[in-house]
């Protein structure tokens, strides 16, 4: 069976272990544990998962910055005092259709492409795509050349120009390296949702949904399969993990 989202063979539910599913299911459709998310801490990220975000721009208010603030808090992205140098993992973008003057507000972050240009151009292998589709920078090997920043069609990456203090233990950041949205990989590895998604549901319009695009049972996957949506810059055929509705 081929997955229409990934164009790759799709995982079979529970890897074909029907006995496990029977044990964990109380009744059809009712599960004690969401098996799509359960992963042991010693277990590596699986290529059978494709993490993705679905942004519903119709529910994203122009003046709302809940996701941006949540990201800054979560990763201790302190202001530098000089705006061009400030880290920016998510930014709010206004799109205006000139013919109708219809305006749409949307959050723009790393799109977690399946074929990321940043990974293609990285000379050290620091930019990489994890098995489960999350695009990251290994700052241990990043030399700060910023080729990836030039290659990214979404302008989603930032460079750390100055010494950083007050980092969170789960989100190391330092001078001379490039950084971008990690899809809150530290949370994802603990079966939690990214900070922006959590805050959008509470303080925002509930415009963000996170889930496994490869799992036919996930809400994101069901919506992507049944509702109109698009990835940004579809002409580049990057197969982005972040999808937009109402754009």
């Amino acid at each position, binding site marked *: 069976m081929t997955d229409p989202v990934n164009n790759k063979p799709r995982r079979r539910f529970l890897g074909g272990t029907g006995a496990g599913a029977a044990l964990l299911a109380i009744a059809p459709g009712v599960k004690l544990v969401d098996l799509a998310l359960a992963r042991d801490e*010693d277990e*590596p*990220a699986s290529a059978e998962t494709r993490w993705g975000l679905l942004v519903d721009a119709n529910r994203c208010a122009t003046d709302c910055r809940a996701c941006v603030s949540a990201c800054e808090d979560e990763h201790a992205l302190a202001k530098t005092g000089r705006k061009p140098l400030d880290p920016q993992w998510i930014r709010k973008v206004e799109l205006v259709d000139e013919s109708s003057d219809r305006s749409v507000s949307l959050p723009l972050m790393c799109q977690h492409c399946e074929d990321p240009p940043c990974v293609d151009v990285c000379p050290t292998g620091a930019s990489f795509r*994890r*098995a489960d589709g999350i695009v990251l920078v290994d*700052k241990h090997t990043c030399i700060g050349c910023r080729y990836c920043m030039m290659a990214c069609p979404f302008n989603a990456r930032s460079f750390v120009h100055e010494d950083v203090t007050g*980092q969170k*233990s*789960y989100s190391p950041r330092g001078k001379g390296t490039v950084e971008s949205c990690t899809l809150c990989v530290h949370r994802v590895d603990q079966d939690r949702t990214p900070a922006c998604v959590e805050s959008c549901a509470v303080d925002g319009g509930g415009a963000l949904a996170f889930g496994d695009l490869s799992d036919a049972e996930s809400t994101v996957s069901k919506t992507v399969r049944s509702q109109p949506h698009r990835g940004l810059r579809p002409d580049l055929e990057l197969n982005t993990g972040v999808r937009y509705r109402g754009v």
Partner: protein
Amino acid sequence: MTHRFVIGSLMIVSLTASSIADVTMPSYPKGKGERCVEPTDIMRRDHFEYLMHHRKISVHLGVRSKRHSLVGCVDCHASQADNGAYIPVNAPGQFCSSCHTYTAVKIDCFSCHAAVPDDVEKQ
């Protein structure tokens, strides 16, 4: 010739002995808990090997085991001041810096990684 060699050797031996006696061995705060994740002599020699291995599997593969994680090191080895505030492990005289100063090996970890446990930073 032999005579000179013997005198020279004696001088070197006496110099070495006196310089060892003058050097203060590093002292550092004791970590939390009864023992480290590996025997102390192994950690002294090979802690960077464990950290290097763990960084590869955690960053690239997403393995989040805590046994050899740098966050685990900081959690146990950061000591607290009298007012309860944590002191960075790379501050002078603290766990990491005391030996690294002694051996003149620069630590790069904490230009990016937090040198104090998380929960206290929020306070």
